[in-house]
């Protein structure tokens, strides 16, 4: 009755709608058709659903919902939406509702000593960050640093968790502006109040300029790195390198300290083709590497042959790339302009992006697909915002505006959190994002 009264207030047209959902029991509303005013927008619809749920369960806490009509998120008033889409208002309209993708909780910031330049949240157990003070850090949770990775002589530009499956030891890789990559091993379960300082077990040398990004093979035995010297190097991560060991033993003797053995490694192969800085690499499948570069191109490489398979020309210097979507087919990339572009290489004309998201106001520094949902991705920008995108609408689903300055890196964590780091030297975690 409340609903009736409320909807009576508006004197506009009414539409017959039926709310349906794929959500589980507490979110279900009765599927009877009701008449609602047509000038309602997302907020109005959400309050109606909440009212309906309250009618079922009197202790229901209000929850934001998003609404889908014919597979498209509603971002304007219903009347407008129907008009734009050309849907008849005479029939009973089926509106599917989902839980809104938005952070509901902001965790405490995790302070760093300098700009946070890289973050990896691919392991649910911890977060790995890289910082301009040349240290890498492992965060168990917000504000709780367990390990500090020490050894680089330049700012860390990229970090990647290679292998987090093992119960005890976890392998991670960091790339730095001192032209090296380092591999680290530590025990993730080992948690003390005081952060443990660890040293790299392997140093990978071979780039002639600062290394910009790392990507790890899904199996974890190889990594690749893109650098300012326009090349992509492939490295092995296993520590059965006898040649390198000898060097490190000598070093250890000279240093006369008790420390882990530190070996050096050389690149297995080099992928040459980019003409400018390789700013981002991803290794989504066993034998393909995607790279984005400042020479305005996105390239797909075959690992076995080292050949350049395809080329997407963008027109702007690119900073980040990620592969995701349905069947790992969509390429999302952002760069030196505020537009996040998504290409579908399966389409014949691949040079034109299939999606362009342009709500940012400055360079895009990172973009990441959600690892389970094929529709969601996030992007971070120098305008200090992290935006969550749903492919079903051209507007950002949610904007995280907690950073005070440029956001340099962002990633998903645990499937429902967004971790981001930036110039304000904070790692921020926005959690409780419900993505089905």
């Amino acid at each position, binding site marked *: 009755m409340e609903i009736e009264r409320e909807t009576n207030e508006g004197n506009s047209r009414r539409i017959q709608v039926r709310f349906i959902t794929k959500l589980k029991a507490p979110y279900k509303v009765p599927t009877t058709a009701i008449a609602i005013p047509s000038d309602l927008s997302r907020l109005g619809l959400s309050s109606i659903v909440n009212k309906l749920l309250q009618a079922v369960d009197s202790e229901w806490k209000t929850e934001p919902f998003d609404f889908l009509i014919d597979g498209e998120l509603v971002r304007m008033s219903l009347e407008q939406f129907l008009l734009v889409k050309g849907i008849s208002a005479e029939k009973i309209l089926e509106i599917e509702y989902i839980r809104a993708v938005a952070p509901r909780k902001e965790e405490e910031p995790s302070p760093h000593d300098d*700009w946070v*330049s890289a973050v990896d949240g691919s392991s649910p157990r911890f977060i790995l960050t890289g910082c*301009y003070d040349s240290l890498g850090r492992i965060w168990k949770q917000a504000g709780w640093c367990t390990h500090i990775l020490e050894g680089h002589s330049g*700012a860390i530009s990229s970090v990647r968790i290679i292998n987090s499956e093992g119960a005890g030891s976890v392998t991670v890789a960091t790339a730095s502006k001192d*032209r090296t990559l380092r591999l680290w091993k530590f025990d993730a379960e080992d948690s003390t109040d005081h952060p443990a300082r660890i040293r790299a077990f392997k140093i990978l040398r071979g780039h*002639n*300029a*600062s290394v910009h990004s790392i990507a790890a093979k899904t199996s974890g035995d190889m990594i690749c790195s893109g650098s*300012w010297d326009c090349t992509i190097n492939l490295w092995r991560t296993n520590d059965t390198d006898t040649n390198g060991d000898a060097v490190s033993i000598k070093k250890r003797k000279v240093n006369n300290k008790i420390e882990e053995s530190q070996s050096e490694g050389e690149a297995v192969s080099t992928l040459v083709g980019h003409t*400018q*800085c390789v*700013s981002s690499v991803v290794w989504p499948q066993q034998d393909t590497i995607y790279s984005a570069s*400042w*020479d305005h191109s996105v390239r797909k490489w075959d690992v076995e042959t080292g050949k350049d398979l395809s080329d997407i020309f963008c*027109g*702007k*210097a690119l*900073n980040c790339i990620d592969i995701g979507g349905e069947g790992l087919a969509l390429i999302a990339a952002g760069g*030196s*302009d*505020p537009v996040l572009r998504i290409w579908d290489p399966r389409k014949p004309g691949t040079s034109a992006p299939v999606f362009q998201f342009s709500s940012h106001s*400055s*360079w895009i520094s990172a973009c990441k697909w959600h690892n389970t949902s094929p529709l969601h991705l996030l992007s971070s920008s*120098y305008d200090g915002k992290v935006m969550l995108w749903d492919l079903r609408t051209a507007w950002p689903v949610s904007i995280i505006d907690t950073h005070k300055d*440029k956001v*340099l890196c962002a990633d998903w964590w645990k499937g429902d959190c967004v971790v981001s780091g930036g*110039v304000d030297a904070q790692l921020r975690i926005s959690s409780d994002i419900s993505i089905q």
Partner: protein
Amino acid sequence: MRKISTIEGYIFFFSFQCFTLVKKKANEHVIFLSLFRAGDSPFFFPCRCGLPLVSFLSGTMSHQESQKLDNVNPLETRVEDVIERGDNDFLDDNHDQDEHSESSQSHQAVDESDSSEDEVAPRNTIGDVPLEWYKDEKHIGYDIAGRKITKKERQDKLDSFLASADDSKNWRKIYDEYNDEEVELTKEEIKHIRRLLKGKAPHAEFDPYAPYVDWFKWDDAKHPLSNAPEPKRRFIPSKWESKKVVEYVRAIRKGLIKFDQPKEEPRFYCLWGDDSSSADRTKHLAYIPPPKPKLPGHEESYNPSLEYIPTQEEINSYQLMYEEDRPKFIPKKFTSFRSIPAYENAIKDSFERCLDLYLCPRVRKKRINIDPESLKPKLPSRKDLRPYPSTCYLDYRGHEGAVLSISVEPSGQWIASGSKDGTVRIWEVETGRCLRVWEIGEAVQLVAWNPLPELPVLAASVGADVLILNTGFGNEEEQKRIKELLHIGTPTTDDSDDMSSFLSWIQDEKYDCIRLRHYRTVSSIEWHRKGDYLSTVMPAGESRAVLIHQLSKRLTQRLPFKLHGLPVSSVFHPTRSIFFVATKKNVRVYDLLKQKLIKKLETQLREVSSIAVHPAGDNLIVGSKEGKLCWFDMDLSSKPYKTLKCHPKDITKVAFHRSYPLFASCSDDCTAYIFHGMVYADLNQNPLIVPLEILRGHTSYDGRGVMDCKFHPRQPWLFTAGADSSIKLYCH
């Protein structure tokens, strides 16, 4: 009247009313026309005087005939051909004085007027027949009585010559072929001939300019020639005339005769002439038609329709408008005509009208009816010339004073900046992170990266010193090399070179670098493309104003040329061993290998501030302190190919992009301009210059705006350094 003869187209008539007298020994040019009227003295009309007249009519008339003659028409004589002649005895024979008294009278009259010996009738009567006919005859003709005139005995030629030689009067003797006799001309005749030759009348006593006497004037005479009364016909209307008139009248009635329509005069005409057609006025003073006053409309009626009357709100809104924008007249409604008040602005208006008339500048403005759009040069669209920098995305903040100079590392990963706060900073381009700071302590005027990627050293000028700083980039080997390069064991006093007095290479311990101590303030630093040579310009350095340093050998040379004018900046050619030196007015181009001046480019600017060379090396842009930008095509001429006037204030720097066809200028007006500057490989095609974008964003500080601009070496991006202590990156 009787036609006598025709000689060469002239027809001579003899009429019987007059008697003619032919002057026997007449001269060739004269035709005498004598008129005899009863009781009148003879007239001699010299006709055709001075013409080479043709023929002679000899005494073809018989005496009887000649007696019948009344009137004489022209007679001609010609001396050269024939001279009519009559011997005295022949004259006596022929002339029958007793035959007719009339004729004797007339002869007498002739005698009176002429000499007596002229009275000779022609002896021969054959007339005007060719003498050839008598060639073989013994006679030459017949006399008047019909007797044959026998030819004379032919004198021997020799005898005649001798006779003529003896005879002193021979020169006046003429042979008359016609009459077969010799004639001796008298003195009078000779005189007449002479006078005729001179073109005068033959008679000396003849006055050609005698006053004219109108013998036939009788109007005012007391006794007019005819005193008869007016005839009657003069008083009665003419029958024939009236017939003719009737004829015309009929013709007019029938419409056979048409008259031209009389031109219609316009009934009304402009009293003061037409204002618009000022054709006759333009001949004199330039006529300026007064502007047409607006015609009164309905709103000016005393009782206008309601829609013309403004509402109170509208009247209130007028108060908010500017005085000039307010409507001059506000329509108002009156019940009757008499209730209209007097016009309150009458005096004011007439005063202003007087002011207008007195002060209005009477200048004709030439209005040109050309579509201004058509005057614009046809330029390609900006969209087609992408990419070019347009939006500012990154800001490099950290300096505390005006950033005076920036320089981009050759790979484009870092930029260096020098500031008034005494620091040199290195920034990461991608993130805007300041990586390194050198505290120099004195305002850093210029910074310049070495163009070699493997030699990451930075030259910075601080007052009179140039520091060559080690940036610390590069791998270990490179660092080792750089450290060796930047290490000077002992302060080298360039052995016995006079350079040492004004320039010294000193090791700077504090920054671990080389300090090049100049003796004047350095205004420009430019690296050679190979990274070993460095040129510095000291505007106050006089003969040693432009120096070229060699880093590896630590040598300094001065430019061995005389510079006319104060040097401002210098730049190396990007590919060849050519060196450009910009003085305040000109740009001089030197070949360093041949050691000579190649070209002098005249900028025609007040003061050059900066110079940049196109990466191909054939084009040059020069920025000036008056805000003008000149583009020189070295192949075209020494004058600017294009001069662009864009900036209202000084241009501080100009820059070319290394790979994109872009160039930029930045100025103290806080803007930077981006231009498309395409240079074609085809020599026939001139460079294409298109202004693309004005980049704003900097704020003015202390009167200065943008101090420096540099392109990113690989991306179409522009860095600008502002006096507001920020560096901005404009991306495409």
